[in-house]
């Protein structure tokens, strides 16, 4: 059969030759095999052209070719994308086998795009590539951190410095008030969750930013797409032209160890200062039993809470490759303590991949991964009554002793000198830490199986089935304890134990067929005239979640504190809310790439998605995109223009596309899987006939049968430049992105019969509706320069950076403002507001215009808020009605940065390599809510907490120049610009210096590579922000995670700061 085909092909060629090339005569037939210099084996699809003619052919699936040349003087030019072209004079040879070597430069320029790869030169959308070295040589725990500062327009903000915490990743801004997280695609498997993988196993990350690049992922891509390619072994091992068919294996071992430190402590008053301020604070009750000077404690609570924390990771990998098969398996262990006591993270990852070339035209590959994570988290909710030790350490009375009796569990509350019951409202941070037993565990397993069929030249059929499953468990054991006798925080009842378990699994089945064909130019047969590539595909996705939340009360066994188990509980309560859900999606998609003479590039993508999330008549979405590239540098007028000689490459790109988002949310911000369907609810719907409570039922949620996708359209324009012999690469993009049909939770009209939900909090009934819009526009640029300096050991270096400007604007959101729930009592105000015409989650409050210096000023100014005195903050009477009211609140800043940037310098000199990278933001504001306690009233009646040292400079009759309001001022009881601080920062993200041992030594030791390195992460942060860390993301929750609420960000009420880490590591392979 195969032979018949070959013969037919030859016959066709022969015919063609006669028809088209009839003037050629006296021919020599040359045959041979072109060998893939990278992977070994025949290289299919390589072009073989007789130089100076239009005679050409290309290799078949086995890399074989046959060509007729006029005579022995003919020169054959062998070329293939990604390989360096080679010329070969035929001479008297009839068989020419040739190994095409990988074109190092070009290989790097191949980027991953959705369901395929593309030459970077040919990419018409906006795609950022983060190379493997950026990641694998940088010891980070999470994928998100690995991307920080590395790609223009990809903003990564740590929500928390807690080990294992997820960061907020925004590609080209916040696209919606709903989920704006990117889609992660790991080796072709899409997932909305950041993958739990060892970052050092990542080969490369490709970030699809604009709609034309993302549209192939359709309704899941509105937040951008992050394509992650994991390392795999190469078939043929290290085989090269000079050493063919040697099967090789390698074992590599990477390890690092470091110690993390809090970057800084905040200046709060010491015991003496606190005491003096306490006495001056108006309204404070002077204790009858005064502090005794000799017993006065001076506890630095921050030092009690923060600690140097070790971090370590060990990765062991084995890879092997033979002619037709390759495999890589790796495992890693990480153990990280948090800089805040009570937080830590342990994980084990095991993963592997294999590729097997069963036939020349058939390859199968498979991958599996298992990850087990366990972390202890601290409560990070902004709640004084909760247990965030970071906040509590700031505000804990420094005159209280830190000593405590762990056996009895007694901790000092506030000074017992004030034994009137109000001071122990604040929990002792050490008690919070010692009693904290919140644990998050996650076990996840994933795998995929791929079949690749290449039945003929240019055609690839790919099919992948992947599965993913996980079990999450959150447990919290609350023991019996006392803080001080009589404290309302004591739990004298028996311990209770909460265990929330969720499990889910999903599968994705995707299939693609890609056909690529190049048509050579008539004028110059070494060059491609038309190039067309067509990909069609389909995908099915299904996921299911199920969970149960159980609380056991009265844990009996004394072992419970060591290993609490629900079987030890007297009674169990099962929550109703963790209900099962399913999601199914089915999609079809296609891509056409067309290039004309390598100058005009057109890409058309389209995807049709159907989801189970919407009603059958609303569940179909079409997500088309179109992009166009023009390689100016390939044009004759460009080439012939002397003044443009320095420009090696110049490409203009334009793109337009639509992408979608289907993440509907319920009133609590959770994912809503059946927004078109209503469920019946019996809880809290009872009625008491004749004194007996009987159950009742009504619908729980009002459904919206009309709900459909959020759609984002995006225009992108870009310019890619390579100048100075490709040493400088510059890329600039401008985009305009608009989300419409944005899903907004609209309160049900008064007469709509909106149920209050099942919560007792009387949250107004809402129905998610497609009414909103939001725009983001921006410019981003990245530049790199590769240089070398000749010296004894040649110094090669690369210098680069990226910067992005983004402006977010909220459009119509249903005739309303969106205010997230207020900060917990006693604050009770909402610092953020989302309103049409402003950027999302802007800070909203009074504008401070000074301090009332005198009674005269107080009386002649606009009537201030009740209780205002001389020495209090003066707010602007914005509406000019002569009094300060709610109406005078204005927008006082945005948490969104105007600019995000990163830049780096790395290089090699002999055996030494180094890297220096910076990262930062500009123009964002932070709402420093800790000021409520540290600078606020604190007048003894309620929350007599420690103060910031700013209070020492408080305004007084004798200190009129101060910008800090008087002691006891209620000015901080309302949100104002006094809270809002400049959140811009520049951070030295890491400094690395490495040494690779020379070949003499490695050869002696019979090893392949040995490198040692030292690194400092977060070495220096330059910022005006007065809090711990200017990296403030989404607000924390009591289970240590971050709220995914996009309408409240940048509010710091004790957020977990990033650590400064000193570490050393080794990369070793043999």
């Amino acid at each position, binding site marked *: 059969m195969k032979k018949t085909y070959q013969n037919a092909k030859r016959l066709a060629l022969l015919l063609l030759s006669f028809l088209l090339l009839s003037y050629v005569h006296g021919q020599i037939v040359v045959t041979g095999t072109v060998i893939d210099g990278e992977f070994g084996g025949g290289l299919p699809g390589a072009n073989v052209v007789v130089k100076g003619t239009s005679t050409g052919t290309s290799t078949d699936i086995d890399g074989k070719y046959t060509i007729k040349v006029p005579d022995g003087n003919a020169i054959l030019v062998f070329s293939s994308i990604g390989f360096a072209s080679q010329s070969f004079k035929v001479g008297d040879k009839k068989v020419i086998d040739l190994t095409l070597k990988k074109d190092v430069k070009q290989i790097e320029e191949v980027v991953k795009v959705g369901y395929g790869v593309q030459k970077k030169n040919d990419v018409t959308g906006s795609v950022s590539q983060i190379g493997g070295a950026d990641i694998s040589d940088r010891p980070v725990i999470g994928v998100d951190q690995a991307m920080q500062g590395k790609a223009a327009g990809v903003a990564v903000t740590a929500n928390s410095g807690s080990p294992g915490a997820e960061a907020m990743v925004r590609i080209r801004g916040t696209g919606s008030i709903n989920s704006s997280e990117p889609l992660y695609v790991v080796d072709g498997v899409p997932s909305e969750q950041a993958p739990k993988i060892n970052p050092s196993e990542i080969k490369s990350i490709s970030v699809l930013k604009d709609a034309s690049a993302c549209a192939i992922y359709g309704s899941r891509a509105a937040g951008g797409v992050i394509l992650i390619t994991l390392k795999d072994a190469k078939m043929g091992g290290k085989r090269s032209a000079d050493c063919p068919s040697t099967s090789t294996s390698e074992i590599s071992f990477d390890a690092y160890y470091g110690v993390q430190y809090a970057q800084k402590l905040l200046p709060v008053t010491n015991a003496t200062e606190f005491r003096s301020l306490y006495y001056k604070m108006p309204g404070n009750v002077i204790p009858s039993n005064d502090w005794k000077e000799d017993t006065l404690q001076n506890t630095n609570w921050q030092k009690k809470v923060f600690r140097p924390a070790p971090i370590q990771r060990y990765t062991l990998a084995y890879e092997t490759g033979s002619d037709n098969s390759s495999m890589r398996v790796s495992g890693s262990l990480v153990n990280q303590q948090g800089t805040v006591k009570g937080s830590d993270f342990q994980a084990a990852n095991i993963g592997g991949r294999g590729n097997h070339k069963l036939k020349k035209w058939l390859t199968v590959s498979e991958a599996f991964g298992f990850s087990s994570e366990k972390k202890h988290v601290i409560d990070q909710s902004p709640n004084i009554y909760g247990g965030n030790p970071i906040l509590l350490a700031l505000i804990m009375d420094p005159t209280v002793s830190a000593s405590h009796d762990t056996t009895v569990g007694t901790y000092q509350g506030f000074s017992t000198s004030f034994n009137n019951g109000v001071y122990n409202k604040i929990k002792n941070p050490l008690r919070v830490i010692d009693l904290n037993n919140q644990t998050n565990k996650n076990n996840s397993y994933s795998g995929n199986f791929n079949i690749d069929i290449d039945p003929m030249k240019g055609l690839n059929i790919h099919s992948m089935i992947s599965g993913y499953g996980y079990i999450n468990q959150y447990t919290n054991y609350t023991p019996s304890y006392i803080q001080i006798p009589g404290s309302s925080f004591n739990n004298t009842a028996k311990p209770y134990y909460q265990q929330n378990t969720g499990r889910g699994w999903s599968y994705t089945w995707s299939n693609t067929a890609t056909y690529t064909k190049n048509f050579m130019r008539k004028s110059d047969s070494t060059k491609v005239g038309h190039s067309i590539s067509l990909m069609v595909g389909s995908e099915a996705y299904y996921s299911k979640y199920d969970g149960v939340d159980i609380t056991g009360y009265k844990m009996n066994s004394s072992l419970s504190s060591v290993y609490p188990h629900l079987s030890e509980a007297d009674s169990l309560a099962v929550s109703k809310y963790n209900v099962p859900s399913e999601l199914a999606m089915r999609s079809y998609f296609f891509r056409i790439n067309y290039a004309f003479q390598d100058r005009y590039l057109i890409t058309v993508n389209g995807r049709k998605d159907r989801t189970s999330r919407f009603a059958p008549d609303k569940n179909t979405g079409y997500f088309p995109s179109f992009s166009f590239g023009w390689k100016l540098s390939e044009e004759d007028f460009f080439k012939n223009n002397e003044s443009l000689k320095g420009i090696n490459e110049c490409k203009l790109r334009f793109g337009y596309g639509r992408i979608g988002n289907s993440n509907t949310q319920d009133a609590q911000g959770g994912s809503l899987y059946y927004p078109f369907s209503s469920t019946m609810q019996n809880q809290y719907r009872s009625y*008491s006939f004749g004194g007996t409570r009987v159950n009742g039922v009504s619908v729980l949620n009002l459904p919206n049968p009309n709900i459909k996708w959020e759609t984002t359209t995006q225009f992108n324009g870009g310019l890619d430049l390579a100048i100075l012999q490709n040493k400088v690469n510059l890329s600039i993009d401008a985009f305009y992105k608009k989300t419409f049909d944005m899903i907004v939770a609209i309160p049900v009209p008064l007469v709509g019969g909106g149920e209050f939900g099942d919560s007792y909090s009387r949250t107004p009934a809402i129905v998610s509706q497609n009414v909103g819009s939001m725009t983001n526009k921006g410019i981003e640029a990245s530049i790199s320069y590769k240089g070398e300096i000749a010296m004894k050991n040649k110094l090669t270096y690369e210098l680069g950076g990226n910067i992005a400007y983004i402006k977010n604007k909220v459009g119509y959101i249903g005739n309303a403002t969106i205010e997230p729930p207020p900060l917990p009592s006693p604050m009770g105000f909402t610092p953020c507001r989302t309103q049409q015409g402003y950027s999302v989650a802007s800070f909203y409050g009074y504008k401070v215009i000074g301090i009332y210096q005198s009674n005269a000023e107080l009386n002649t100014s606009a009537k201030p808020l009740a209780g205002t005195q001389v020495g209090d903050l003066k707010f602007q009477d914005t509406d000019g009605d002569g009094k300060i009211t709610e109406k005078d609140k204005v927008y006082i800043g945005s948490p969104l940065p105007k600019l995000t940037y990163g830049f780096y310098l790395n290089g090699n000199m002999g055996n030494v390599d180094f890297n220096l990278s910076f990262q930062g933001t500009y123009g964002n504001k932070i709402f420093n809510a800790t000021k409520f306690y540290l600078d606020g009233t604190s007048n003894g009646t309620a929350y007599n907490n420690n103060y910031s040292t700013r209070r020492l400079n408080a305004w007084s009759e004798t200190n009129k120049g101060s910008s800090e309001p008087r002691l006891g001022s209620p000015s901080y009881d309302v949100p104002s610009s006094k809270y809002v601080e400049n959140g811009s920062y520049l951070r030295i993200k890491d400094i690395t210096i490495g040494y690779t041992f020379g070949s003499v030594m490695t050869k002696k030791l019979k090893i392949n590579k040995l490198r040692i390195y030292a690194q400092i992460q977060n070495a220096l942060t330059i910022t005006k922000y007065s809090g711990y860390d200017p990296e403030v993301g989404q607000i924390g929750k009591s289970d240590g995670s971050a709220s995914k609420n996009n309408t409240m960000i940048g509010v710091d009420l004790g957020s977990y700061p990033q650590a400064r880490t000193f570490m050393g590591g080794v990369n070793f392979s043999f």
Partner: protein
Amino acid sequence: MKKYIISAFFLSTILSLTSCNKFLDRQVIAQETTDGYYNTKENALLAVNGVYDPMGWGNHESIFMQMIGDCNSDDCEVGGDPAALDMGEFVQYETYKPNPSSFTKDFIQNYYVGIQRANTFLESTTNVDYDARRYRGEVSFMRALYYFDLVRAFGPVPLITKSGPAYYLSGNRQSGDDAKGSKHIEKIYAQIVEDLKYAALTLPTADKYTNTTDKGRATKGAAWGLLAKVYAFEASYCKNNFLFLNETKSKLWEKVSQYADSVKLYGGYKLVPDYHTLFSKADENSIESLFEIQYVSGSQSVGGGNKNEGTIKVVDFSPRSWFDASAATGTANQSKWGYGLDEPTINLVSQFDLKDKATGSIKNYTVAYNPTIPAAVKVNGKKAMNMWILDDMTKNQWNLQKDFTDYDPRIDMIIKPNDSIYDYLTDAVKPKWQRICAFTHKGTDLSDYACTGFWSRKVLDGVDDPDNPQVRGLNFIVLRYADIVLLKAEASLELGNDGDALNAVNEIRARARASRWERNGTGTGYNTVTGTTPANLTSVTLEDVYKERRLELFCEGHRFFDIVRWGIADQICPNRPSEFHGSDFKSWKGKYSYFQPIPPTLISEGKGNVVQNPGY
């Protein structure tokens, strides 16, 4: 060849991948959905219960109706904290300057939750395999009751009788359902009547409900009674040229009379012997009660609403603060506190024919607003309480038996300063109530808060421990037989059947006289003794009926709606003798004040189809 076959196979899967549509058909799992839910009778009953549920919600819902009914009339005033006015919204209502915000919105929203549940039920049970008539009757009754409260309070509210997204998605309202003005009010009444007639047809009489868990369900009698009441409103409005201008008022009065007779003859209702026990736990769902909101105590929470089956009326209507009986003398413990709303006025107290022992004549306490309260009775610079009645009562207990030779015994349901009536209570509770009485009277060192000195015992069941008034289980009577009897009297007079009217009024008065409480000799309890005055009437006028309604039904949320329909609100309301709110009652705007303003949210959501009531 194999590779082409395999290729073809894979290529075809790309195009045909899971083309089965079931793959995408994912429905809610592990939870009941509306689909098919009503197909079983058991489920339907649960859904019926759900329709009653909002009526019992504890926060401000039924309280709102009672507050308007009592405090917007001369019966009650809103007390509480005169400075902070934490229940200021009710003061605004009371002084006819309503500014609808949270309570009104909650009230309307919650009632429409009930209506939406009813609509859903009625739509879902039109074609079911079981006999759903009784259930549909109950639900129809509840829908009528929700609308009757809404239309009495607000006038032309949207009339929504269907469920579905059109009614709850924004910008989707059906224009026909909202309308403006009096015609729309009449349309709402027509719907109420239709629902009640259906209910009357399908519901059983009270005695047919034999299960204890059916006590308190809507009955045939309740439907008849409510029909009588609804027609009484229509007839009165018609009589006073306010609404129903095209109706014949005598026909409407005949309907009132006819349905009142049905209640009497076929409903099986009668007056309970003792007026006072009506408002106790013991007499819940009594033979006199046509319909009451069912509560049970024991719920812990106050704020939530739909979670609780108890009512927080008690805390809302309790004294603003009082001494904790167990606390040391002189130590204020304001943790035991209520809001101090709905306080009977001296004007109301004076209606009970108090025959002064000294003068032998009926004592009429009158009070005029006195902005200059003596400094002595100010506490912390705030007006402490109603001091002007103290002249008579400062020195001794306000002992009815001692001070008056005769009076209407129904006054016992008002807690008075130093009221001795609490002697009957158990030793555990008695001192606390006595303390409340003492404190409300002699507030000089106690209260920062305004109060008239009187409290309605109809809500404050004296058996309860006042230290813990938060959530109580005392039912609230919406409709009782005495109301129907008096409606019958009213209709009879309007129709010229004076004899029937006289009988009806005397039936009420006779029961009242049989209900006096007196301390017993030992001081450990009380006796019910027969009163002597007032005697039976020998003839009856409309004014007599109006007064009888006031004496019988005070502090049950009726008075304001009655004086509006009687057309006498314009004389009474602006001239109310005020104890706290001074000349504020002058804000009365005649017929514009008959209805409360419609919340702006409701108007904006109506997109032009809902308009504000005139005058606001």
